[in-house]
């Protein structure tokens, strides 16, 4: 492989510097400008627009979540209050119905007692009447028997 060691040769070689160097430099600078116009700027615009879009969407979503959480706690508070109120109403209604029941019971008991008293006193008076009547009849009968006995004699 004689060509492998052409390092310092005047013609060719691995370290053969010539106008390739500045021309390549100019070419790369040109490529930089072309790629900047065709690649870096447009792609950067799209990527950054998307990043902005994602960021604003995320911020909006966060705001919405906060709003939802606020509403949720509000509703929970309202619900708790409503539940407490309902319990109170139920308790009141229970108390009311109990009172009514007690009143009705007391009334009914007193009425029953009164009518029983009345019935008893009626019975008593009727018995007394009947006893009196019996007594008078017995007296009459005794008188009659005595009269008859006396008359026969």
């Amino acid at each position, binding site marked *: 492989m004689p060509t492998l060691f052409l390092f310092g040769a005047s013609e060719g070689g*691995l370290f053969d510097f010539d106008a390739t160097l500045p021309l390549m430099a100019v070419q*790369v600078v040109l490529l*930089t400008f072309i*790629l900047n116009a065709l690649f870096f700027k447009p792609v950067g615009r799209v*990527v950054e*627009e998307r990043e902005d879009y994602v960021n604003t969407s995320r911020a909006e979503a966060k705001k919405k979540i906060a709003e939802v959480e606020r509403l949720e706690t509000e509703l929970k508070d309202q619900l708790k209050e409503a539940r407490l109120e309902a319990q109170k109403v139920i308790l009141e209604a229970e108390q009311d119905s109990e009172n009514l029941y007690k009143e009705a019971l007391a009334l009914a008991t007193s009425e029953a007692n009164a009518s029983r008293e009345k019935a008893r006193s009626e019975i008593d008076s009727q018995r007394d009447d009947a006893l009196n009547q019996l007594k008078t009849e017995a007296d009459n009968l005794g008188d009659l028997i005595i009269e008859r006995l006396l008359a026969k004699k």
Partner: protein
Amino acid sequence: MGFLPFVFPLAELEVGQHLYWQIGNFRIHGQVFMTSWLLIGALLALVVIGTKKMERDPKGVQNLLEFLWDYIRDLARTQIGEKVYRDWMPFIGTLFLFIFVSNWGGALVPWKLIELPSGELGAPTADINTTVALALLVSLSYFYAGLSNKGLRYFEYYVHPTPIMLPFKIVEDFTKPLSLSFRLFGNILADELVVAVLVFLVPLVLPVPVMFLGLFTSAIQALIFATLAAYYIGEAVEEHH
């Protein structure tokens, strides 16, 4: 290479031979420009296709281009810093893309099928002229970045943190382009040579893993070059306190 009776046609080695084009008094390496124009053309075609109809929901080539853009932006932003990375992103990105397509194009396209009167087609970055041109552009751009951002205060960098650093920093200005250009040149040329020698010795199977390694090296070299270029620019625009 005629000393073996069954020379594989793809395996001929022609190192250091060039196809010369004469332009006025100057001579240029024709094979470097032919491959670079083809590869730049392919790159530009990809870019034009990908940016033709861009949407908010990216599809197809646009996805690839946005991935590349994002990758280059991250590279430029981490090395150069939030303040001025936008000015230098196209340059860093062009370096990365040009070196990447050059390296991969040199490795993937079977250039040897095309016969040239002298020299052979290959990666443009396997020619020292290309890599030195790129490295000198990097040198120019970090000087420009430093001077345009900080004016003459840029030269404070040479005596930072102590004036003892001055000679080292001056030497660095020469070693930076030297190491940049020779690293790239050496890696790509060595990769081409290793593959060519292996194909020449064992034409089957054995060169394949080396070819894959070459693709890996090529990508890494593009990344290293772009990262270092960005780092040098970032170093030049950095504010010392």
